């Protein structure tokens, strides 16, 4: 027993403080098993970055979520690409010869509509 312990016999507040100091030095460590169990719980319950409090996900992330994910976005992209292709492709590639008469007559089915335009310009 050390001199400090000999002096620290119980009976006064100062002596009690010495006992508290000894108690602080004699803490019982948790077992490795407990630490492992706690970490196991931590990893099992670990949230993803999207659930962070107070954070707003980037605009692309929100669009991605609103549209319904990659399958939907893939389908939309394919549709847009097909539309662009049709829009820019050469219409003469469509061969109509032999399917319709070569003499084509253009008729103005809505001749009366031109009246409105003429009235608007006067």
């Amino acid at each position: 027993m050390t001199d400090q312990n000999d002096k620290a016999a119980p009976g006064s507040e100062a002596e009690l403080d010495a006992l508290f100091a000894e108690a602080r030095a004699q803490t019982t460590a948790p077992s490795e098993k407990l630490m492992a169990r706690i970490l196991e719980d931590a990893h099992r319950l670990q949230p993803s970055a999207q659930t962070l409090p107070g954070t707003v996900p980037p605009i692309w992330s929100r669009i991605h979520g609103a549209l319904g994910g990659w399958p939907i976005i893939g389908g939309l992209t394919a549709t847009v690409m097909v539309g662009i292709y049709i829009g820019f492709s050469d219409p003469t590639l469509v061969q109509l010869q032999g399917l319709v008469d070569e003499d084509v007559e253009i008729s103005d089915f809505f001749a009366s509509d031109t009246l409105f335009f003429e009235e608007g310009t006067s």
Partner: protein
Amino acid sequence: METALDQDLELSDQALLVLYCNGDQQAAALLTQRLAPRLFSFCIRLLGDRSEAEDVVQEAMLRLWRMAPDWQQGEAKLSTWVFRVASNLCTDRLRKRGDIGLDQIEEPTDERPDAEVLLMQADRKSALDLALANLPERQRQAVILRHIEGLSNPEIGEILGINVEAVESLTARGKRGLVAALSHKKEELGL
């Protein structure tokens, strides 16, 4: 074990919790190393039973992981929050079983080397543990948190849900009770 992340950045508990939410597994390990030993020390002194103390610490930490995504920055210290959870869990257990029986505290043995020295140290520790066990529950919690775990009075107030004046009153009465109990043991312990 102090890791490079802990040593270099000296991150706060709150910052580690945010990293944990971001998927950083090292952050969980650091928080566990910081908080679990302190919680365990507190719980085993309150409950006097290693197995029960381990269960309480695991449950308190489990609630911390569950609460992590909803943690509001700046509201309270993380350590204070988790101590409050552990304190409440200990209180529940103590109330279920009545109180700590004095016979549940381990008696010192003389089978180890330097048995005489160890016996005297164990006697002093047991004397303190016995005296603590005889205090009313709130006084016991306040004294352990203040004088053994080293928390501040405002922190203890948050944990126990009382104001600082009430904490001071509890610890003062607790210390008086301990002095009285230990003075009776003085001769018996040969101190």
